């Protein structure tokens, strides 16, 4: 009798429980993806740069964000600091070595929830042929149907700091800072 009761309770629980949402595939919208960086120049000021070409895919689980995954590929030749000669230098072997390493990639390995709409994104960054783990502080901004595109959209912001020398990009350190701040703003659209 006791066993029968237990089975009945379990069945009722399973039937009555809300269905668990599976991660949903999203594509990062290139027109609403900004990958920026801040680097200190000789201690005088910080220089802001960006990459103009990037793509990414997000597997997003709204109800269990720690199950979400993200991968981003950045075209290093698209580096842009609003100065043609400097950008040419940044593409040279001194920095991004863009002819030899045209892509920089990030693949998430773990997402930890730290607040109602914040988390820590752990992942592997591959730059100049070197892969190292990095962490980014992520803020999940909003999800829902975009008023502009009428598509299911999720938006988030990410911030973090890496040491470029960890990836073998040592030229100019310390005059051009080793610490690079990363700023990522992205909207992803349900595939």
């Amino acid at each position, binding site marked *: 009798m006791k066993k029968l009761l237990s089975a009945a309770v379990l069945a009722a629980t399973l039937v009555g429980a809300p269905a668990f949402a599976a991660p949903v595939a999203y594509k990062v919208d290139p027109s609403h993806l900004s990958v920026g960086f801040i680097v200190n120049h000789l201690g005088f000021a910080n220089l802001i740069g960006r990459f103009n070409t990037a793509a990414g895919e997000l597997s997003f689980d709204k109800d269990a964000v720690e199950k979400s995954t993200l991968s981003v590929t950045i075209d290093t030749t698209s580096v842009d600091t609003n100065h043609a*000669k400097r950008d*040419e230098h940044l593409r*040279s*072997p*001194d920095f991004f*070595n863009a002819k030899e390493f045209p892509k920089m990639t990030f693949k998430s390995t773990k997402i930890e929830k730290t607040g109602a709409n914040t988390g820590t994104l752990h992942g592997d960054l591959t730059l100049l042929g070197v892969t190292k783990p990095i962490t980014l502080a992520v803020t999940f901004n909003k999800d829902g149907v975009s008023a502009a595109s009428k598509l299911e959209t999720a938006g988030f912001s990410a911030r973090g700091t890496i040491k470029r020398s960890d990836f*073998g990009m040592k030229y100019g350190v310390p005059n051009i800072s080793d610490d690079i701040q990363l700023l990522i703003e992205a909207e992803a659209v349900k595939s």
Partner: protein
Amino acid sequence: MTDLLNDPFVQSSLLPLILGAVAVGVLRLVGGARTGRLLAPAGIALAFLGLFILVVGLPAFPPPSSMGKLFWSAAGGLVLGLAADALGLKGRPVSVAVAVWLVLALGWIAGPALDSLAAAVPLLVLLAVGAWVAFGGSAPDGHSPGSSSAAAPAAVLLALALAVGVTALIGSSASLAQLGLALTAATGGFLLWNWPTERHVWGASGRVALGLPLLLAAILALYTQVQAATLLLALPALAAEPLRRRLPIPDTGFGPALGTVAVTVLAVLPALVAIAAAWALSGGEASPY
């Protein structure tokens, strides 16, 4: 002091000049009267590697990038040159060893860029110059009047490194520029030891040093946006010694000293032409920003 060491101008001129001169002197001293004369040119490659660590940092091994491959190729060449000279190897075995080193180093560096026939052209040109370094004109030529058996190939090295360094500077590749100019200055340190009286012999270590601008040029041609074709204009520098032999240099006590000056000028002139061409093609703008 740290500020001084981090100054790009010091890193590209005074520091490698001093490092080169000191390293050449120390190797000459350590090697003794006979072997030291052969080992001394290795001071150029030693200074180059020291400056590489200062400017770019010590690369990982195995190196993922062409710059790291440049460093480890140069280090391998240095060991090869020192070993061959310490063992007293001469003639064809040394030429073959240097040639194999150059082919492996250039192939290793250029490998990832060889995605088209056009990309193979610079490599073929560099291999041809490498053949000259290993088998041809950089070998000691005897002691004819005014001859400079170590100074002549050193002058060619100085000229090629200068052409590569300044071309890289014009083309916004600062570390390659610094390394090219550092190699020029380190060679200057070697030449100071050999003027007015020649003291050293251009053996395997010397030929390895002469291969270094080719490795720099490979990266410049294959991995940057620099118009590296202008470097072809520097190649007549290889003929500096045959041209010097045609000059009426007197067979007196001043002959060798005058010969070294003449061969240096003859080698540097084509390098300056190559630099002028690179400058003109860039629209007359270097890369200061």
